[in-house]
């Protein structure tokens, strides 16, 4: 199926964030190159797919765009379970949406898979005059939490494709294997060796 050097991979990606932050708009921009001022509110979640080429690999994102209202939170695990990537979206003109984004980060760190690539997207970057969430502090927050951070605008298309491209690049399956011995079956290693190899990679 995958000839040498040419790979196709499927990756589940989930978008999380406050209602009205622009999750659906980001997806619409990325998948169809469109922007609609009043996007229908998402109920449950909507599914989309789009491919990105990174070097010789084609990444097909299977995108779950979730509902933002607080009470839909209880449905979210169904969508982020097993996700290779998560985009947490907030609105740069709305401080509350940033606080909720931080809650999502905490939740994913606690419940999610440690291999999930997490990206933080400060959307509505075109509304610079109404900004409430400073970019620099967010950058620091993102670094501290190991998130990939970008400010985006679904309206003007700024950084939208870039965001998904950067996520694709960071997917573990696209990274060169850091340590081939990591693939060795556990049985072949003594517990002490295992501990050593685990710590050397961290």
């Amino acid at each position, binding site marked *: 199926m995958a000839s040498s050097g040419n790979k196709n991979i499927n990756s589940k990606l989930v978008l999380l964030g406050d209602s009205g932050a622009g999750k659906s708009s980001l997806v619409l921009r990325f998948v169809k190159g469109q922007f609609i001022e009043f996007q229908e509110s998402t109920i449950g979640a909507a599914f989309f797919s789009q491919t990105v080429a990174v070097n010789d690999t084609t990444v097909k994102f299977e995108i779950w765009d979730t509902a933002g209202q607080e009470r839909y939170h209880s449905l979210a695990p*169904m969508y982020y379970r097993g996700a290779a990537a998560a985009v947490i979206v907030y609105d740069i003109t709305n401080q509350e949406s940033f606080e909720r984004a931080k809650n999502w980060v905490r939740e994913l760190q606690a419940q999610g898979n440690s291999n999930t690539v997490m990206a933080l997207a400060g959307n509505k970057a075109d509304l610079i005059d109404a900004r409430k969430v400073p970019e620099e502090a967010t950058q620091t927050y993102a670094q501290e939490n190991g998130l990939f951070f970008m400010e985006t605008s679904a309206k003007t298309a700024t950084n939208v494709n870039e965001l998904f491209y950067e996520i694709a690049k960071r997917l573990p399956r696209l990274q060169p294997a850091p340590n081939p011995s990591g693939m060795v079956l556990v049985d072949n290693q003594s517990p002490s060796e295992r501990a050593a190899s685990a710590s050397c990679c961290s």
Partner: protein
Amino acid sequence: MYGGTHGKIDLAIEYQAQIPILRPSIRARRANITVKFQDLYGFTVEGNVDDVNVLNEVREKVREQGRVWWSLEASKGVNWYLQTQSSTTLKFSVLVNGITLKRLIRKGIPPSLRPKVWFSLSGAAKKKSTVPESYYKDLTSAVQDKVTPATKQIDHDLPRTFPGHPWLDTPEGHATLRRVLVGYSFRDSDVGYCQGLNYVAALLLLVMKTEEDAFWMLAVLLEDVLVNDCYTNNLSGCHVEQRVFKDLLTKKCPRIAAHLEAMEFDVSLVCTEWFLCLFSKSLPSETTLRVWDVLFYEGAKALFNVALAIFKMNEEELLMAHHIGDVINIIQRTTHHLFDPDELLTVAFDKIGFMTTTTISKERKKQEPAVLAELDQRLRRLNSVNEDDK
């Protein structure tokens, strides 16, 4: 304050008058191109020439159903269907009328009679009769200037509810929908406002004659027809319904259930929206309303029949699918193109097999403790995560 509703009714009549029988040109037929057109309730739909033809046939069937209903009114008397509900009389004619009515409703209530029939058979009329005449007017005027998290979310969602609809997406449409949703959020503060209700209330407004009647339909739906707590706090009722549905799918469509499970595809990924919006976001409008015809008369079990039918209709194709994306495409392509309500309802009620409300209630009772425990556990885990961080 009810001026808006009159305008809406005029508009609704206008649509029906303006809609000519759509005759696709030969060129369109040859090219099999996608055309955009307005359906019976003013929604813009996209479809191919076959879809247009199906819609024309549906219009004709709706007219035919109308004649059947009117002739029954003539022979059995106006409001004959109301007698089927009185529990005190056990007359033979009442039973016969009951059976006739159930069959008739599954074949569809004509749009012109829908407001009246829904209002009485759903229990909305009874609900309204228990409060003073001025209840709705008093409620909406008392709360119109209040600001709550619910009203903020409602205001945010008004332009995002069926955007582009010729009446709903106007200042008048927004204001009317707002009064209904805000009014309800104060009637039941446990529900307040849940996203999804905007679509349900919008469609109710398009059907019912007045916004007040739409409000009472929303009330009866949430308070009596649907499972409890479907829209409250953590949507626990919705979680319960999803589990009941999964069990039913395993029983009624075992091959599909096994296949999807092997793919690790959780059917709730697609079904949650159906149960929260009552299909209004997925099915064409007349098909949705045909589902609601049965919903308001037979109860929430109708939703399970319809959801099962959507899977059942695609059994062979679903069994061939091996990617999540393919499964979703099959389901969505089907739901968006179900312009012929009978195609869906025949499967839902004739092929799925009989399910009683009692069976569903038992299933719900069985699932409820596990759902509540799981939600509670999740909440506690999240709280501890957030506290550790502070």
